[in-house]
């Protein structure tokens, strides 16, 4: 295992310490329990938003804390959900009197831990709502399973909902908005190589030199199928077709196209994927009104990409465009 770390046990704490030192104007980092809050928290009379999840997906979520996006992020150990005590302390630190929205990716661990945190926060008199993101079309949507994973739409929901709370949206309304974003976004990912969890010390899976994993999860969970390596254009189509069919997206729709890097894939390649995705959408009469390209929801050093398409309306577009000032997203301010 080749990593720039001191030890697996200290990795997350040292990394968020670095994040805090680099962006001390925007965020504050709290240790033991670990959480990251915007520098001016709590913001009086603003609904707060907290997200969190395992580490290893940076810049998500710590890089999304700041004006116009998250009020707090709770980083767990690498690929492990954070714990209720972190969430509870973060909740107390950011509640500005208007309640707190938890944006939770649909993984059993995240759901259970946020659930416990919500119980604890409510018992301390803080109003809490939780909205689950489950946009990964690689997973069959079934009532009898844990359902779909939360992936790329999470990033977009955090930006859009963050902007809404800056504009004075109430807790119940921002929760409603978050459910709308989740209902409007679909994603699918693939991997060329595995990631290596520091504690495990070796790759989570082995992919032969001529194979790829389609529908992979952001924790290196195996995907839909393993197939022979294909060209970027073919792969883009393999990812995009089920995404478009699922909602379904239709001619005339306006969308945000998000081509995400899994960590180890260079930007040079991501733009090749973006180019093809943009063409496919355009050929179907689906408009690409906004774009996001880059490694925003990563899986350590995994090589691969995921594509998220979000159906836009005026409200979502306005909140997407609204000013934001976080380590990873910065515009209009």
């Amino acid at each position, binding site marked *: 295992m080749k990593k720039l770390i001191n030890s697996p046990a200290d990795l997350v704490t040292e990394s968020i310490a670095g994040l805090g030192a680099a962006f001390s104007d925007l965020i504050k980092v709290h240790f033991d329990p670990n959480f990251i809050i915007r520098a001016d928290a709590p913001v009086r009379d603003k609904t707060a938003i907290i997200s969190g999840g*395992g580490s290893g997906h940076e810049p998500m979520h710590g890089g999304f804390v700041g004006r116009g996006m998250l009020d707090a992020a709770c980083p767990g150990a690498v690929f492990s959900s954070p714990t209720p005590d972190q969430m509870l302390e973060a909740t107390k630190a950011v509640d500005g009197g208007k309640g707190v929205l938890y944006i939770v990716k649909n993984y059993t661990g995240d759901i259970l831990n946020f659930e416990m945190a919500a119980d604890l926060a409510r018992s301390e008199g803080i109003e809490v709502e939780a909205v689950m993101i489950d946009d990964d079309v690689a997973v069959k949507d079934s009532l009898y399973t844990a359902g779909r994973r939360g992936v790329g739409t999470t990033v977009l929901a955090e930006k859009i909902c963050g902007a809404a709370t800056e504009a004075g949206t109430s807790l119940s309304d921002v929760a409603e908005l978050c459910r709308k974003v989740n209902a409007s976004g679909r994603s699918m990912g693939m991997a060329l190589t595995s990631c290596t969890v520091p504690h*495990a010390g070796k790759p989570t899976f082995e992919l032969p030199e001529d194979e790829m994993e389609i529908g992979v999860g952001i924790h290196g969970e195996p995907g839909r199928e393993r197939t022979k390596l294909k060209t970027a254009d073919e792969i883009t189509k393999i990812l995009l077709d089920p995404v478009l069919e699922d909602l379904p997206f239709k001619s005339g729709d306006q969308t945000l196209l998000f081509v995400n890097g899994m960590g180890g894939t260079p930007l040079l390649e991501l733009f090749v994927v973006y180019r093809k995705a943009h063409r496919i959408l355009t050929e179907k009469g689906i408009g690409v009104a906004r774009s996001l390209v880059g490694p925003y929801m990563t899986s350590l050093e995994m090589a691969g990409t995921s594509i998220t398409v979000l159906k836009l309306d005026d409200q979502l577009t306005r909140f997407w465009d609204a000013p934001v000032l976080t380590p990873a997203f910065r515009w209009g301010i």
Partner: protein
Amino acid sequence: MLTASQILRWIEQYAKLISEQKDYLTQLDADIGDADHGANLDRGFQAVLTKKDELAGKDIGTIFKTVAMTLISKVGGASGPLYGTFFLQASVAAAHKDKLSEADFYEILEKGLAGITSRGKAKVGDKTMVDAFQPAVAAFKRNLDEGADFEKSLSDAIDAAERGMLSTIPLIARKGRASYLGERSAGHQDPGATSSVLLLKAARTAFS
């Protein structure tokens, strides 16, 4: 009767087994999950061990409560809240007790399991720790009703847990991270069911 120090030894013994088996558990999790089950539990139980001294002399309810809170705040993932809830419900059942009868021990297992299923909503056959826990608790109950001694009850429970654990191999997961795999989850043993068997095995070592 089980004493508080035997309960403490159980916890220590489980921590030891987890630490020994963590790579194995993580490997099972790598196959159908995210390669952290061993690391998760080990992080939690190592944190529990640091509280060993302060727990000496405490009642069993307090011991379980401390284990529960430590797991909840240190483990994360699915297994943190699930094992945490197991011990939290166990602590309610054992509140203020310094000794546990065989019936008390059954109540602990039964309440603990109820905590897991009410939190995780998994049923037998979903390919989770419940596939090991539920038959184990049932086997213990059967022995208890038949008046068997503790050793035999525990032994049968362990056997049932192991059979349950092995029964997860062909199953298609319906809960937890492995469920994302659909049919590809078949052919692999569930890591949580495996760590549950170790919990009971640790009890046998600690109590005998």
